[in-house]
């Protein structure tokens, strides 16, 4: 009997814990969404309403008719896709090399790649600023693409190497006998087999690039080239008070692409996230 009572109490505790943690994770997103549908007068009412009394799309109309916001979103896509492309190319080549052509040089590269995870970007960004200034790359989207790639290549390389390691070498041997060149073998046979790995590093890189704030706020000087995070911070965050209707609405626009990716690809994202740690 005692054991039965304990079990019920345990289950009740589990339910309560689930509800509290679930609310902690999800309520803020709900609150962001609800605020974006409220009229200004209602946003500044206290105590607040959990459900808007007057539901409005006016905030969205205002955001979407604002050219600079559309430009931020477009820039964010350009930078995120550019970074993803560059990172996927560089890290699949490097990962393949680490997997199939092990050497002392490769070992050094691998260790250095792992160590980059520790360096704080803020710590090196001032030197990076000087480098880009000397290269005349300040205020270009390319400066963002290349610096974000430098940040995402290490993890992507290590990750994709693991996927290549799982592919049998007999495929390459067979291709070689058939007279297929090494680069062609890689492109035509190996790459298509590593689609899940490529997807994992692509998603990882895209998310990292979408999240960028520091590079954009430091290297980009004009509004037309600004990306989303930096743009929101510059445009909507006043010195004294924030325009919360606009801030919450533009935030929803900024999280939406990520949420869609999560719903579509969560399995691959999780595979990418956990691959390194669970194996190692």
């Amino acid at each position, binding site marked *: 009997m005692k054991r039965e009572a304990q079990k019920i109490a345990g289950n009740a505790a589990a339910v309560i814990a689930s509800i509290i943690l679930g609310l902690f994770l999800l309520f803020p997103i709900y609150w962001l969404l609800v605020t974006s549908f409220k009229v200004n007068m209602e946003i500044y009412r206290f105590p607040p309403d959990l459900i808007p009394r007057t539901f409005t799309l006016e905030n969205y109309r205002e955001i979407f008719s604002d050219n600079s916001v559309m430009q931020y979103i477009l820039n964010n896509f350009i930078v995120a896709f550019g970074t993803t492309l560059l990172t996927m190319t560089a890290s699949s080549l*490097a990962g393949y090399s680490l997997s199939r052509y092990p050497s002392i040089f490769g070992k050094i590269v691998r260790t250095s790649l792992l160590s980059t995870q520790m360096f704080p970007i803020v*710590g090196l960004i001032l030197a990076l600023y000087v480098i880009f200034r000397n290269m005349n790359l300040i205020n270009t989207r390319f400066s963002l693409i290349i610096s974000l790639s430098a940040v995402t290549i290490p993890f992507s390389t290590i990750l994709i190497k693991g996927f290549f390691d799982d592919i049998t070498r007999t495929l390459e041997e067979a291709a070689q006998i058939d007279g297929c060149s090494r680069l062609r073998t890689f492109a035509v046979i190996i790459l298509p087999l590593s689609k899940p790995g490529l997807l994992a590093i692509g998603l990882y890189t895209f998310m990292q690039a979408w999240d960028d704030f520091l590079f954009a706020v430091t290297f980009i000087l004009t509004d037309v080239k600004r990306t989303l995070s930096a743009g929101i911070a510059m445009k909507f965050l006043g010195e004294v008070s924030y325009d919360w209707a606009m801030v919450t609405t533009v935030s929803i626009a900024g999280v939406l692409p990520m949420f869609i990716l999560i719903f579509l690809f969560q399995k691959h994202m999780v595979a990418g996230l956990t691959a390194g740690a669970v194996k190692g």
Partner: protein
Amino acid sequence: MARTIKISSSVFGSLLMLPAAGIVGGFIFLPVIQSVYYSFFTFKLTRKKLPLIWNNFDNYRQVWETGRLQNAFSITFQFMLMVVAAVFILGLILALLLNRGRTNERLTRSLGLLPWGTPTVITALLWSWMFQGEYGFINFLLLRLGLIAKPISYLVNPSTALAAVAVAAVWRQLPFMFIMLLAGMQGIPGEMYEAAYIDGANRLQTFVHITLPFLRNVIRASILVTIITNFKQFPLFWTMTGGGPMNKTETLAILTYKNAFVNLDFGVGAAVAAAWMVVLVIFSLVYSRMVREAEY
């Protein structure tokens, strides 16, 4: 006859490495070395021509004697410890709950991952809104529950600002931790639990003697990632508090950035960054040594 140029395997392997090594070397390692180098010189961004002037550790002395560096170290460590502890404990609870597996896993996982997909700056804005002093939801909630008597401006109040930023950090990082732990738990063979059940082990014993030892690698890796993430945290502080109030949230990241890009004094910024990177490297080494020894 078409002649292809034969290159040896090792040369081919190195060639494949070049793009990645070039980008990471040129835009991570080079700037790291340069940052350390700049930290010994007077180097102001305000001047166009830059003759670097050796200044006899003046940059280091400046941040040390004003106490800013020590303050930043202390704040960074406090923040890091708070967030890592909270993320780990809550993540473990969440993973255990979900591992009981009665829910629609795909949906709960997707929903649970949403904070992780929220860009950091938006996370900062979202929680600034939640913590807002006059109309914020947190004030509403705590007043309702009777936990506070009057509204608090959490991000402006020196005694609550750091904790408020920590809440935002926990919110965004919790999904990563629980997904990692959950994946680890699902890798534990079911027979282990059956055997424990037959032997009459209770839930706590099962957890301590089966779950935790099996999760050792996952726990080590995900805690290290969380430590490093929070040691480096910049956008949350920059957007939520900017290092204020009264330097109570001035972390190493904020101190570096302020010196370099607000005061335009790269030398001093680089000094903070160099001190910070040295500590971060030592800390990571000590941590991995510690957990490795704990294993044997």
